[in-house]
């Protein structure tokens, strides 16, 4: 064991302590970001989808102002909050639900499970990745909306405060719900097929593609149960003129209800996520 002696001595002099969760979350975040950037097609999809949708809808319906006699604004301006909400949903809920299901399938989780990495650091890395991609994607979307479609950006700091908390709370809720939902697909291959329709349906009933006030009442009620409607409404309160609040279901922006529903989903997602998180596939023994 002569060659081993130096290492032995070092280990003896410095009792090894397990790395902290926060530091490991940063290590994981660096790994996640690297892998995300190298998946070119995913990057393009996540970043381009809301922008492409904004461009298509604004071009097709560009001549039709949205609203009623009370207030009417250009289509792109009405459409932007919904696209911001969709972007948050894509980078948090959809990306996470699919990527964790895939990582459960391809052995990533199994390998991590065999190391001293705590699950909190794994999820923490995902949260940091989500935060980074959400911020970058939303910034890009806002820049395109302002520069290419002349959507006026709010100048009132209060509105940006609203933007900040709706964005952070929406991303957090989408993240924990994505972690929880990832246990539903049976395999990595089926993950997209299971997750994408959920997101699509939510987009349609939550007033992302159509003016929410124009949807049938039952659809509005259904959408009110889910977070996307509230993220979109919160974003409308940021980017639409004040008088448009009259078109919302309650006749106001309902910030309190928005925060309440998002927090409720955050808690539900957290509880379900913690209870159902699995390192292995569902059908694996």
């Amino acid at each position, binding site marked *: *064991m002569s*060659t*081993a002696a130096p*290492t*032995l001595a070092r*280990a*003896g002099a410095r009792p*090894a*302590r*397990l*790395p902290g969760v926060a530091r*490991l979350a940063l*290590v994981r975040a*660096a*790994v996640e970001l*690297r*892998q995300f950037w*190298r*998946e070119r097609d995913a990057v393009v999809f996540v970043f381009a989808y809301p922008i492409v949708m904004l461009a298509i809808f604004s071009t097709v319906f560009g001549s039709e102002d949205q609203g009623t006699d009370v207030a009417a604004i250009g289509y792109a301006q009405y459409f932007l909050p919904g696209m911001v909400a969709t972007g948050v949903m894509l980078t948090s809920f959809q990306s996470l639900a699919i990527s964790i299901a895939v*990582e459960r399938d*391809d*052995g*990533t989780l*199994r*390998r*991590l*499970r*065999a*190391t*001293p*990495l*705590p699950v909190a650091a794994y999820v923490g890395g995902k949260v940091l990745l989500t935060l980074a991609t959400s911020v970058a994607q939303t910034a890009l979307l806002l820049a395109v909306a302002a520069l290419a479609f002349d959507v006026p950006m709010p100048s009132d700091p209060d509105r940006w405060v609203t933007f900040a908390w709706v964005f952070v709370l929406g991303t957090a809720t989408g993240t924990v719900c994505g972690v929880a939902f990832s246990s539903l697909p049976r395999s990595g291959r089926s993950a997209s097929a299971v997750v994408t329709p959920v997101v699509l349906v939510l987009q349609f009933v939550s007033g992302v593609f159509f003016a929410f006030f124009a949807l049938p009442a039952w659809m509005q009620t259904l959408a009110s149960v889910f977070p996307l409607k509230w993220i979109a409404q919160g974003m409308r309160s940021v980017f639409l003129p004040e008088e448009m609040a009259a078109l919302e279901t309650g006749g106001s922006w309902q910030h309190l209800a928005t925060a309440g529903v998002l927090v409720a989903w955050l808690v539900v997602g957290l509880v379900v996520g913690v209870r159902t998180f699995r*390192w*292995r596939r569902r059908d694996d*023994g």
Partner: protein
Amino acid sequence: MTSTTTPAPAPPPAASRGPGAAPPRSPGDPAVRVRGLAKRYGVKQAVDGLDLDLAAGEIVAVLGPNGAGKTTTVEILEGFRDRDAGEVRVLGEDPARAGRAWRARIGVVAQDSRDQAELTVAESVRSTARYYPAPRDPDEVVAAVGLTAKAGARVRSLSGGQRRRLDVALGVVGDPEVLFLDEPTTGFDPQARRTFWDLVLGLRDAGTTILLTTHDLAEAAHLADRVAVVRDGQVVAEGTPETLGGPDARTPLVSWTVDGVRHAERTEAPTALAAHLMATAAGADGEVADLCIARPGLEDVYLGLLAKETDA
């Protein structure tokens, strides 16, 4: 495989364990102790009362046909599966309840992984090293598995054998005391396999306890200090590769043909028997037809064991 250009592996990096570095276990305690392990999937009793011990610093090969319960057993020992019954201790702890500190002391090379495709070899090993309290040097580990030339290559671009060697690098970078290798050389060419064997022996010499499952009898014979044959979820035979199956199974077999009829006889004195045959059974040319003296190897003993169990 690019093993032809791969240099012989360096001695394992940062050899780590000696008696002094051992964790709070008394010296005589086995590194792994399994008693009466049972696990059922639906109607299939995958593991059925399995007993197994690994002393610290030895390589034990678990042999057995597909579906014998090898992988299930290993996954229970890794803390990856629950068991239905039985007692399991790995490094003195129950894997089903062990925490991070315990995971830092084991290493796992599982079957069939496809993860981390977008990372490079070096990134993959370095980031994994950071999960551990006292890891080996990642670059040395990459060198030890012969992947230095591929350190900057994306994992997705590796061949099957290179990918497997990366799996081993990731399994040992945390400097584990107990290493689980689940069919590690499946798909290796002979030279890569030989290189890999040297690596495993080096790890053992550095004090690592290694549990190896394999289909490859030559691998077990070359690497293992002890061999355990598993069939239907139980250990049916155990011993060193040289003594497995008992002396009877090792008795040389002399076979020959007389008048088109094949004869065979087990004897401890094959030379004497051959001399006797030369006198009594040789043809006109002085040759005994189809004379063959065979000393059963591990594979013959193993197949004999499985056949005997099936007959029983």
